[in-house]
């Protein structure tokens, strides 16, 4: 890869040194163009929304502790389920994983001083707070949108019109933010790698962000289109989705899922990237199958664009569609499996350090095996017909989004908190957090599979009393998860102020972000670093120190 044709010189991007030596606290509340400030802005904002979305979940689970509707009004329950989903996806996982880690880490990992378009970057972030405020406002102006995060018409067009309109605008805003961010990531990774870094020396997180950004660029405009059409139907008398005026309700579902299925990959691909960074460092081994992991991200990105109808197997879909999308969906299991097996093989033969970051990464691995397998069963249309729109689906996607994405975000925080703040998180407290989260996740989301198969539909505020016991168990699990965030938030706030000094490279890691100070100075390095080794060259120079001969090689079992 010829690097001589780089036309943008990173040092010129900021236009000299028109900034102070160090940001003050209030700089984090302004339209700041430093990618690290923006990354922190994304992370802090999304962690606040995580609490809001989690609070809604706890209230819903409290309602579901009994079969009857006796705690929340059914309208409020539906508003919570709608906004719980919306917030957790669009204002928690996506901004934390892509906006937060992506913005903070990409320039540091590739040896750039900032993102390619710093002002665009700041603009992308500042679309998020007003979007969140609009969503909050929708509760006070009509009780919140109540037609689910999918907002299928006609229900979304006849229920709570003003909140629904605000909801549409919210999604258009966060969607725009996502598109701007994606362009920025792609150009940054394409053009601003330090000249000594070839494509196959890039950390795998960067590969994951390439796949994520391509996917976001293809899919997000379609969501924006669907939102505009829905908004027009609600407010301006059009009838795109009104069957009694010539519209078609199924078209909306196609538009929505063409984005929203890829959206689940938007939420997991960056997390896969985090996994590929955390596991080698704490297992003290090179990542197993670098190219396979990099290319499987791109494969997931490509195949992921052609699986959306599996959300519509019971809807208005022709037989050939149900079959075509069964096959395409099942194929996604192959690249995902490659990643899982590669991470397990990375553990094999390592010297695993039981840090909290590693515990969450391995916890994710374990959860994702379960969630991935239940995902395969859902891909098969004949079985999906039975469990579609039931708690089985709720259980599945919480396994991959909570056990997957949220575990990954936690893992990333424990791993990079020292870099971001210059201070270590408290490890014993982190382990308490991990144990509570791990147990809570299993208790909360496993019984949901049983409930769904036995006959409990999702999105209900009242249910058949025969399901009461399992639901109470789920509610207990949800409370454990609610408690589990307390040691984490306490740990973060306390350690940020008083934690042990981290130093530049507390984990003895080999990617480029660890070559600068913690926290990094404003343009990341005094002098740009030169790449002298690959991102995962563990044990390479010190091959003679490797354990005794006869160590099992990772060839005997996957």
């Amino acid at each position, binding site marked *: 890869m010829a690097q001589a044709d780089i036309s943008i010189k990173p040092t010129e991007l900021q236009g000299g040194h028109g900034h102070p030596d160090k940001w003050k606290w209030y700089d984090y509340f302004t339209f700041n163009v430093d990618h690290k400030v923006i990354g922190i802005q994304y992370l802090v904002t999304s962690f606040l929304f995580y609490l809001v979305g989690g609070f809604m979940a706890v209230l819903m689970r409290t309602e579901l502790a009994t079969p009857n509707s006796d705690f929340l009004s059914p309208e409020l329950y539906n508003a919570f389920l709608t906004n719980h989903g919306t917030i957790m996806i669009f204002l928690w996982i996506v901004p934390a994983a892509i906006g937060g880690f992506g913005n903070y880490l990409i320039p540091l990992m590739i040896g750039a001083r900032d993102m390619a378009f710093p002002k665009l970057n700041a603009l992308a972030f500042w679309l998020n707070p007003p979007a969140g405020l609009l969503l909050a406002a929708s509760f006070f102006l009509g009780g919140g949108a109540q037609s689910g995060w999918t907002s299928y018409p006609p229900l979304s067009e006849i229920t709570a019109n003003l909140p629904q309109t605000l909801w549409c605008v919210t999604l258009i805003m966060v969607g725009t933010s996502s598109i701007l961010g994606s362009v920025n990531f792609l150009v940054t990774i394409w053009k601003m790698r330090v000249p000594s870094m070839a494509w196959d020396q890039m950390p795998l997180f960067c590969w994951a962000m390439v796949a994520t950004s391509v996917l976001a660029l293809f899919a997000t405009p379609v969501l924006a289109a669907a939102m505009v059409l829905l908004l027009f139907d609600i407010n301006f008398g059009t009838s795109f989705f009104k069957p009694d005026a010539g519209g078609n309700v199924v078209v909306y579902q196609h538009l929505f899922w063409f984005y929203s299925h890829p959206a689940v990959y938007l939420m997991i691909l960056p997390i896969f990237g985090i996994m590929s960074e955390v596991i080698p460092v704490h*297992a003290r081994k090179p990542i197993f199958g670098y190219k396979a992991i990099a290319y499987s991200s791109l494969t997931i990105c490509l195949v992921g664009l052609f699986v959306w109808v599996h959300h519509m197997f019971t809807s*208005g879909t022709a037989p050939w569609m149900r079959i075509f999308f069964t096959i395409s969906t099942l194929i996604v299991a192959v690249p995902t499996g490659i990643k899982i097996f*590669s991470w397990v093989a990375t553990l094999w033969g390592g*010297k695993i350090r039981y840090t909290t970051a590693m515990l969450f990464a391995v916890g994710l691995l374990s959860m994702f095996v379960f969630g991935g397998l239940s995902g395969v069963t859902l891909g098969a249309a004949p079985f999906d017909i039975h469990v579609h729109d039931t708690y089985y689906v709720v259980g599945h996607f919480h396994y991959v989004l909570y056990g997957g994405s949220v575990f990954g975000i936690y893992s990333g925080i424990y791993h990079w908190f020292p870099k971001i703040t210059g201070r270590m998180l408290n490890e014993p407290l982190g382990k308490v957090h991990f144990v509570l989260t791990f147990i809570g996740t299993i208790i909360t989301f496993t019984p949901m599979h049983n409930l769904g198969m*036995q006959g409990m*539909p999702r999105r209900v505020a009242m249910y058949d009393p025969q399901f009461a016991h399992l639901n109470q168990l789920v509610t207990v699990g949800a409370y454990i998860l609610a408690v589990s965030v307390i040691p984490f938030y306490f740990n973060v706030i306390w350690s940020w102020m008083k934690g042990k000094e981290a130093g530049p490279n507390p984990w003895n890691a080999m990617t480029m972000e660890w070559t600068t100070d913690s926290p990094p100075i404003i343009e990341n390095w005094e002098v740009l670093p030169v790449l002298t080794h690959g991102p*995962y*060259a563990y044990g390479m120079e010190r091959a003679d120190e490797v354990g005794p001969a006869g160590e099992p090689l990772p060839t005997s079992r996957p």
Partner: protein
Amino acid sequence: MKQIPAPFWTLILGIAVTLISLWVGQNHNLLPVQASEQAPLVDDLFNVMMTIGTALFIVVQGAIVYSLIRFRQPKGDDTDGLPIEGNLPLEAFWTAIPAVIVVGLGLYSVVVFQEMGGFSPGGHHGHGAMVAMAPQQSVIDVAPLLLAQGVDDDTVFGKTQVYGFGASPLGQMNQPNVTVNVTGMQFAWIFRYPDTGITDGELHIPVGKDVQLKIEAQDVIHSFWVPQFRLKQDALPGEPGELRFVATREGTYPVVCAELCGSYHGAMRTQVIVHSPEDYADWVASRVAEVTPTTTVAQPNEKATDAEYLAEIAPDLAKSPVQIAQMTSMSH
């Protein structure tokens, strides 16, 4: 490990995992009773996936737990692990095995889907007609049937594209024994029997007979689901749906709305009663006696609101007046 060769332990483990998986695949008790001809087909598919899934789950989780114990950092050892960057045969292996499994599952799904009637919703239209023809029949033999069927369906549905499950491959040339028009509305299911004029809030069908449900929605999207039948089809405003099945087990099973349809979505439940043929005949006779020829309630009045409509047909719905009052207040 030194005395007994590793392949021996691998073999023992492999056999153990296989046996455990096979047992779990048959004895998980996760699914409710089977009450339709499609249910065993779906369950067999699930059991196969459960078997494979259990095996993969044990192997991968086992490898994770084994690694965590066997390869944990020795105390005071700050060195790195083995510098292994990959292994092409191994990577090819774990790419190929899942690929073979998912292709196999995909093909199996197609077979199950076809046996369930997934390729023939809407009767003998379009591709459905081609699938429906038995090999020994010529087009000329079938044509009059197709025409008759086509005209009939068009008058009922007004459209040719129907979504859902039609007759099984063996039953395609037969007319259903019982046809029921199912209408979903906030927040109730209405069942109308066009042959007899019966309207009811519960679905009554005979066991062992070919039943066709023509599914539509009055207001928003609903989804008709009977867990014990393993069948579900969305009721879409403006788009006709169909479920065709043979109930195989007498009893009372829940009918559940599976698509969020508003505030009382969770309460949109009724039941399906699968009668013996004699009981079914008695039920039809008792209900027909109640229906006077001048009754017009079976016709949905498009101008009426849901509430007016519900109130109008309330006596036929076997619902208590309190429930009706609730429903009418809900839909405002």
